């Protein structure tokens, strides 16, 4: 039996599951938007703008979900500054939850700046203060912001998996693949969200086709990593003999990866399934570990 079965569950449930999903999706969408911003064509701009909007909304939502999940939400800033020694910075480079707190703050800042820049580009900003900020984020500045923000996006998508691995919990600490898996899922769900939302902003068929093609490749990468993940926790495979195992094998692999891969002709429907699969991936990986009754397992019951 893995030594991880003697640890306690941290009660990361219905605020953390959506946070991991939204954070991954927002990070993936920003990364793709930044890639198109840097290396795409003018016709890709509607998708770029949509990606920045998704990232900004996702980052704000992520911050809210994380804060609400705390036992003492008003002390959220204790993760950023030393509460007894303000304004000294609170940062532990070896603790994923510590560098994650800073990363989500910076990702929020970069995604909001990019979103404002994109809205200024369209002339859709009414408030003078926002228009002034958005006006600065153009040209080289916009490229720089999106370059750093795109890398932060991948980081946000992946650090949540590393956070789970850097514990002593069953499944999470038994595998080093969760970070890699969540990055692939963030990319695939980010692309799916763009496929669904960008047409309303005037996305062209060519850009959408590129997104669908990238999404399919990201799903293949995700599937390969998922196989490696399942193999890495093979010694505790009995954990999947549960409702969460059904969610992983049927919901994530079946409906979230294999089905969309077979739906080339219907990218919008495939994208909806990818989003469902991405959400269920977080549900299965988080709640399968949360649900293990350590006392019964420790007692061999």
């Amino acid at each position, binding site marked *: 039996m893995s*030594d991880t079965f*003697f*640890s*306690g*569950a*941290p009660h*990361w449930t219905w605020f953390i599951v959506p946070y991991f999903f939204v954070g991954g999706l927002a990070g993936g969408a920003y*990364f*793709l938007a930044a*890639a*198109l911003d840097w*290396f*795409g*064509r*003018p016709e890709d701009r509607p998708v770029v703008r949509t990606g920045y909007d998704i990232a900004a909304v996702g980052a704000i939502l992520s911050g809210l979900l994380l804060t609400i*999940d*705390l*036992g*003492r939400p008003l*002390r959220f800033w*204790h*993760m950023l500054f*030393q*509460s007894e020694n303000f304004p000294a910075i*609170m940062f*532990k480079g*070896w*603790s*994923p*939850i*510590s560098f994650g*707190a800073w990363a989500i703050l910076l990702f929020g800042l970069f995604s909001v700046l990019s979103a404002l820049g994109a809205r200024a580009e369209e002339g859709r900003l009414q408030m003078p203060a926002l228009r002034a900020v958005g006006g600065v984020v153009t040209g080289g500045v916009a490229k720089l912001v999106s370059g750093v923000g795109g890398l932060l996006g*991948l980081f946000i998508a*992946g650090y949540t*998996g*590393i956070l789970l*691995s*850097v*514990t*002593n919990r069953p499944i999470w*600490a038994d595998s*080093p*693949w*969760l*970070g*890699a898996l969540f*990055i*692939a899922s963030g*990319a695939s769900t980010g692309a799916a969200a763009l496929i669904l939302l960008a047409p309303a902003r005037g996305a062209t068929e060519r850009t959408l086709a*590129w997104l669908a*093609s*990238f999404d399919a*490749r*990201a799903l293949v*990468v995700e599937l390969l*990593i998922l196989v490696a993940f399942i193999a890495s926790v093979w010694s505790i495979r009995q954990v999947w003999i549960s409702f969460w195992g059904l969610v992983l094998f049927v919901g994530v692999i079946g409906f979230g990866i294999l089905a969309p891969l077979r739906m080339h002709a219907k990218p919008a429907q495939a994208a909806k399934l990818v989003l469902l699969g991405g959400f269920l991936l977080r549900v299965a990986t988080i709640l399968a570990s949360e649900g293990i009754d*350590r*006392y019964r397992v*420790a*007692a061999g019951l």
Partner: protein
Amino acid sequence: MPEPMGFFTDTTVCIGCKACEVACKEWNQLPAENGGVGELSGDSYDNTRKLDGIHWRHVRFIEQFKGPYDGRWLMMSDVCKHCVQAGCLEVCPTGAIIRTEFDTVVIQSDVCNGCRACIAACPFGVIDVNPVSGTAQKCTLCYDRLKVGLEPACSKACPTDSIQFGSIAELRTRAHKRVDQLKAQGVKAELYGADPDGALGGLNSFYLLVDEPEVYGLPRKPTLPSRNLGKSASFSLASAAVLGVLALVGLRKRRMDDMGSPGGGGPN
């Protein structure tokens, strides 16, 4: 500078009276569970069952019965191990978890924001949320009592000296003598967590056991959560690199297709 202090728990003399649990609850003013209404576990004479945010001491009852006339009770008063290398302290993002001058590990409740990372990091399942404070809590090894030269409430209350408090060096000497004594009597006795070169640099609350650690709900080789950081980060980086290359190769291919097609545009 005070020397490292801690507990040596000799499980062979524990009688399961739970006086330590009561003394801990009383001194630390920990709230009752279930509004104070007694609730039977239904599968054990132990009705408090576990360590958590409002049970900083727990007397574990291990009921090993193969038949009506063939069995034994093992009792162990469990508590935070005050690890020399503490996983909870390692991951805590607020700095709420500190190492004291007594080499013990304490959560400062006024700093903790209840993120619960320490709960998942602890290999022993010691920490949990206290629903009254909304913060993670566990045994402080009665830091407030130690500061004024008093013994922790649990060891003070223990009627059989199963829980012994003292300097770690002295407790280790005493524990080794007790193991030798028991082995001379034919008892299979082993120390858990007493080796400073062992897991987590040794535990400042260590135990004398007469069965395998797992029987007492203890991991055989407890480890720090950070053992996974390097590998997990490397795999994530590789995954990010693969996806980045896929995106860029896809964009490059599209551009090449454009340049190759009649009337296609050049690079933007």
